[in-house]
């Protein structure tokens, strides 16, 4: 059994008295893809930031561990973290335009990234850039390198960012809403690109998105988050077909579909919770169709069942529904 | 609809300014030497250092400097209001026309502004003040005329952004006329940066007028104005520091207070919808 590359053990992150992440636990193996799905306020992006220890001001890790290749990242020094970010764990974000400096060429920016981690001469660096631009299927690599961000389309820029993330040959890539700002057609292309790139490089991939479609195409396992807590964790097929958490099922059901056009969409009443509320009990309770008195008093723990983990008192019953 | 972003410094600086205005207004009744605000001379009391009876000392004519500073506040504050007020009166309509009407009118107004903005900041007021004739009123006009392009620019830029926001289109598609849109939506949502700049500029206006007075193109004796007081102290301040220090200090603190109020206003008016 291959050892896990990254393991989160009961990671808890707080901003003052508000709990933003509550006991997040999952692991990713080499070569695996994990998806994190959730709506706004679920804490999915915060999880990514917490792994890289890029927490905003006032936000601190208050418990748990983030183990990468055996060591707890929270016990590492600032210098070590800086060397690790990009080189071992890379990240790409939602808006490709915002991630790049508009007044510098692509080549200059990629060069910065490479020079920060590798001691290669100019030739080698250029070759590296071309190699990875080709890997992301950007045909005219020289033209792209000498371009400025505004001269490239959103789809091309996202490919550039993927190339920039990959050119350091990291062990893991975290993609936070990589396709959200892109058009539907490009979205498909980027998803397929990520699949290909991961296959060829063998690195681990963490895809964070609110879009179940994107995540289920890429990920082998899915973590569903709600209100800063884990709702469910299982293999993608299990989540899509046999979910045992009321929120996951409701979320899946409320998506409009091209294949099965519904008469009426299933809706979850109410709105996703803000950070810190409700205080006690299950976060989903106010909106849950299966709720009981107990759900308001205690927060359900993350139960292990044979095929995954789920945080609901009634997961056994839901298995049969 | 101000969110509660009033900072302590804003309270402090605005409080000071209000106090100053009050003191300036009531200067006559507050000081024990109201008669000093004029062309008088007390030969025996010339150039006395700060003491209990004269907290700021006396000047080369024997006049109490504290009294002079308070009376001087009147002119300085009026100059500030005059300059900024006049600049707004000229600048806002031009900014509105440029931002709303666009095309050739916009180009025309912007080129005119460019001409004014091409001058180094203090040169144009000096030229205008010299041309108009040296007195306080002309100094105020000179500075205002040199400064209005800033407000025109700022307002126009903000209008250009606001015009295209969905809520404007929504109102238009409900049948709103251009006047309705301008008066109820565009102007109110575009004024914030102009107001902030105007508040900041009050301080600089005082400095500019004081500067003009210093070189003789602004207020003239027997008017009492801080810049003029500093000029008058040139002959004496090396040996009698208080003759320059207190008017200078008043100038400094007041300009600083306007700065802080302007910054505070920026925070208060920030709607935070621009990411």
């Amino acid at each position: 059994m291959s050892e896990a590359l990254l393991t989160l053990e009961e990671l808890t992150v707080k901003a003052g008295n508000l709990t933003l992440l509550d006991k997040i636990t999952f692991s990713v193996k080499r070569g695996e893809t994990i998806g994190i799905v959730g709506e706004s306020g679920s804490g999915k992006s915060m999880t990514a930031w917490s792994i890289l220890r890029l927490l905003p001001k006032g936000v601190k890790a208050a418990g748990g561990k983030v183990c990468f290749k055996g060591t707890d990242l929270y016990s590492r020094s600032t210098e070590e973290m800086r060397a690790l970010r990009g080189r071992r764990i890379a990240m790409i974000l939602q808006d490709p335009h915002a991630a790049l400096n508009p007044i510098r060429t692509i080549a200059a920016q990629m060069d910065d990234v490479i020079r920060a981690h590798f001691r290669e001469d100019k030739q080698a660096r250029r070759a590296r850039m071309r190699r990875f631009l080709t890997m992301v299927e950007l045909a005219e690599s020289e033209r792209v390198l000498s371009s400025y961000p505004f001269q490239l389309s959103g789809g091309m820029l996202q490919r550039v960012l993927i190339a920039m993330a990959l050119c350091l040959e990291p062990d893991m890539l975290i993609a936070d809403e990589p396709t959200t700002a892109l058009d539907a057609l490009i979205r498909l292309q980027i998803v397929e690109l990520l699949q290909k790139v991961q296959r060829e490089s063998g690195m681990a991939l963490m895809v964070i998105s609110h879009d179940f479609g994107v995540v289920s195409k890429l990920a082998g396992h899915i973590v569903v988050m709600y209100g800063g807590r884990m709702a469910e964790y299982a293999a993608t097929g299990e989540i899509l077909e046999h979910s045992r958490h009321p929120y996951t099922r409701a979320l899946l059901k409320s998506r409009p579909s091209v294949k099965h056009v519904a008469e009426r969409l299933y809706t979850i009443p109410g709105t996703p919770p803000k950070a810190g509320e409700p205080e006690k009990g299950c976060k989903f309770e106010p909106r849950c169709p299966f709720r009981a008195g107990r759900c308001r008093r205690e927060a359900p723990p993350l139960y292990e069942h044979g095929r995954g983990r789920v945080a609901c008192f009634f997961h056994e019953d839901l298995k049969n529904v | 609809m101000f969110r509660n972003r009033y900072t302590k410094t804003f309270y402090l600086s605005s409080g000071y300014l209000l106090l100053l205005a009050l003191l300036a207004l009531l200067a006559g009744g507050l000081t024990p030497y109201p008669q000093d605000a004029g062309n008088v001379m007390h030969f025996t009391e010339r150039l006395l250092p700060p003491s209990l009876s004269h907290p700021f000392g006396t000047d080369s004519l024997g006049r109490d400097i504290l009294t002079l500073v308070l009376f001087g506040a009147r002119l300085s504050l009026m100059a500030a209001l005059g300059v900024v007020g006049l600049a707004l009166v000229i600048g806002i309509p031009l900014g509105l026309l440029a931002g709303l009407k666009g095309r050739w009118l916009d180009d025309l107004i912007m080129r005119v502004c460019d001409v004014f903005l091409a001058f180094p900041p203090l040169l144009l007021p000096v030229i205008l003040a010299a041309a108009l004739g040296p007195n306080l009123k002309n100094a105020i006009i000179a500075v205002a005329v040199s400064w209005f392009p800033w407000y025109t620019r700022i307002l126009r830029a903000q209008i250009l952004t606001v015009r295209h926001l969905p809520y404007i289109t929504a109102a238009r598609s409900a049948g709103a006329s251009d006047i309705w849109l301008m008066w109820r939506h565009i102007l109110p949502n575009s004024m914030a940066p102009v107001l902030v700049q105007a508040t900041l500029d009050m301080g600089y206006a005082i400095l500019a007028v004081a500067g003009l007075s210093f070189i003789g193109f602004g207020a003239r004796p027997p008017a009492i104005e801080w810049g003029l007081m500093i000029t008058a102290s040139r002959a004496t301040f090396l040996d009698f520091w208080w003759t320059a220090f207190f008017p200078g200090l008043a100038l400094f603190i007041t300009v600083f207070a306007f700065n802080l109020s302007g910054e505070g206003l920026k925070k208060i008016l920030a709607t935070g919808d621009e990411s």
Partner: protein
Amino acid sequence: MSDQKEALLRAVALSQSYSSKHGRIRALNSVSLELYPGETLGIAGESGSGKSTLLRLLSALEPPHEGEVRFEGKIISGAPVNERRAYYKRIGIVFQQPRLSFDPRWTLFRSLEEPLQINRFGSPGERRALVLETAEKTGLDEELLNRYPSQLSGGQLQRAAIARAIILKPRLVFLDEPTAALDVSIQAQILNLLKDLQKLEGLAYLFVSHDISVLAYLATRIMVLKNGTVMESGPAKMILNEAGNAYTRTLLASAME
């Protein structure tokens, strides 16, 4: 497609170009469409497809370079201001960004009342009653009406936007990616609301979206737009299941289910 009913909105050979630093760009290329009362025409298009320009032309906010737009038989494209104003009262628009759809300095109530005030509708009491009634129809709590946009969620604001769009009891509502900025669970609520309101108020919708699954839920007919040209158009079922055009098929594939 029903020939008996007269088309509510009809556009014939609409074309629009813009000059930019790259020369003249043709934003729309001879686009024609019809919208019948009570139905939803879905326009599937990505960025650069010309859908925004199309919406502006159809809502008479801009005159077309070529072609015409008719509402209830009368030409409104390039019509004089007072005729366009009359048209505006019969339509509503819902935009993509709920937060930018409201004047940040006004309470929700005031924003909802605005269309009534502009058109000098009734007394303050009657206006208030209509605002409350419309807000209720869109699922907005009365209490929320006294708040400012910054104090409300995206979903609540979008409900308010819909309320404002229908308050003058229009026949037709233009919707420009109304759920693109919302969470999935909120999107479902809004889409259901739109469906209900359509039946309740007898509204016709012109719904623009890049998300074909959303169009699948609401649209009676779908038109696919690419680079300003109509790729394909027809009844929703046909487009979704038997699309002929290659671009349409790729769009469908990108729904990723």
